[in-house]
């Protein structure tokens, strides 16, 4: 399926699970927060949340800031 991830088109080869997508990106699950189509998806719900073709996903983490 095709996803828009952090502003870039990505062909996702997994089953739509969040865990597989994060592994594809190389993002550590416990260092990541997620929105799908603008809505926050809590990490406790990642196992049951299924990504769909055309979803817009934002994967966020902490960086330096004042």
């Amino acid at each position, binding site marked *: 399926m095709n996803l828009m991830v952090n502003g870039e088109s990505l062909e996702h080869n997994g089953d739509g699970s969040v865990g597989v997508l994060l592994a594809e990106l190389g993002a550590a699950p*416990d*260092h990541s927060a997620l929105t799908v189509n603008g809505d926050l998806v809590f990490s406790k719900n990642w196992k049951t949340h299924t990504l769909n073709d055309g979803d817009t996903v934002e994967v966020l983490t*902490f960086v330096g*800031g*004042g």
Partner: protein
Amino acid sequence: MKLETGNLKLGSHEFGSRLILGTGKFSNTETMIRAIEASGTELVTVALRRFNREKPDDDLCAPLAKLKNVTLMPNTSGAMNAKEAVRAAQLGRELSGSPFVKVEIHPNPHHLMPDAIETYIAAKELAADGFIVLPYIPADPVLAKKLEDVGCAAVMPLGAAIGSGGGLSTADMIQLIIRDSNIPVIVDAGLRAPSEAARAMEMGCDACLVNSAIAAATDPAAMAKAFALGVETGFAARNAGLMPKSEVAVASSPLTSFLG
């Protein structure tokens, strides 16, 4: 003037250090960690950004998690309005597990002045949602009081523009905020020298938030320590009670009975 002693109280939390550090602009993560450790701070700000697969080392979660006795305070930088700030705060809480949020909404990249209206709207919503809210604000006593009324844990007026090193250019207005405030007042942005942090504390501020002055110093860890001393000195001096000013000289030695 308030005469607070002991720990800095923010919501239900207490901190022994009255210096809060920002984590931006450091040349590398190791330098940032050394500065945090040298400062003795117990509260640091972080920003939320897209994960960058090209720069995985930008992720600060792992190095910050190794620090003991340091609480994270995600900021909402990048938010252009209250709605975006609320969403950023929720993401920050999800990622950090921390109830603290620095509400920061500055839509104009030229001056980075906080949007008072959007900040108020976001702070009110987040406080009602259980966050410990510390809004970054213009040095406006009316706004500060309104933010106290909606449940903010502190207010953080700017001393000068972010990253400018302009010092305490808003000192008179901050003094007015302190006079009326029942919540901590924390100077955020503008400080360049530890002496300015000491002056802010002498004025009655409860803490200082410093980032650029430390990150951009030749030796960030040494400057972090210097700011910690500045904050501590100013706080101690304030609690010791500064002598009143006099418009005329007042002799320190007796002026009579000199050599008979």
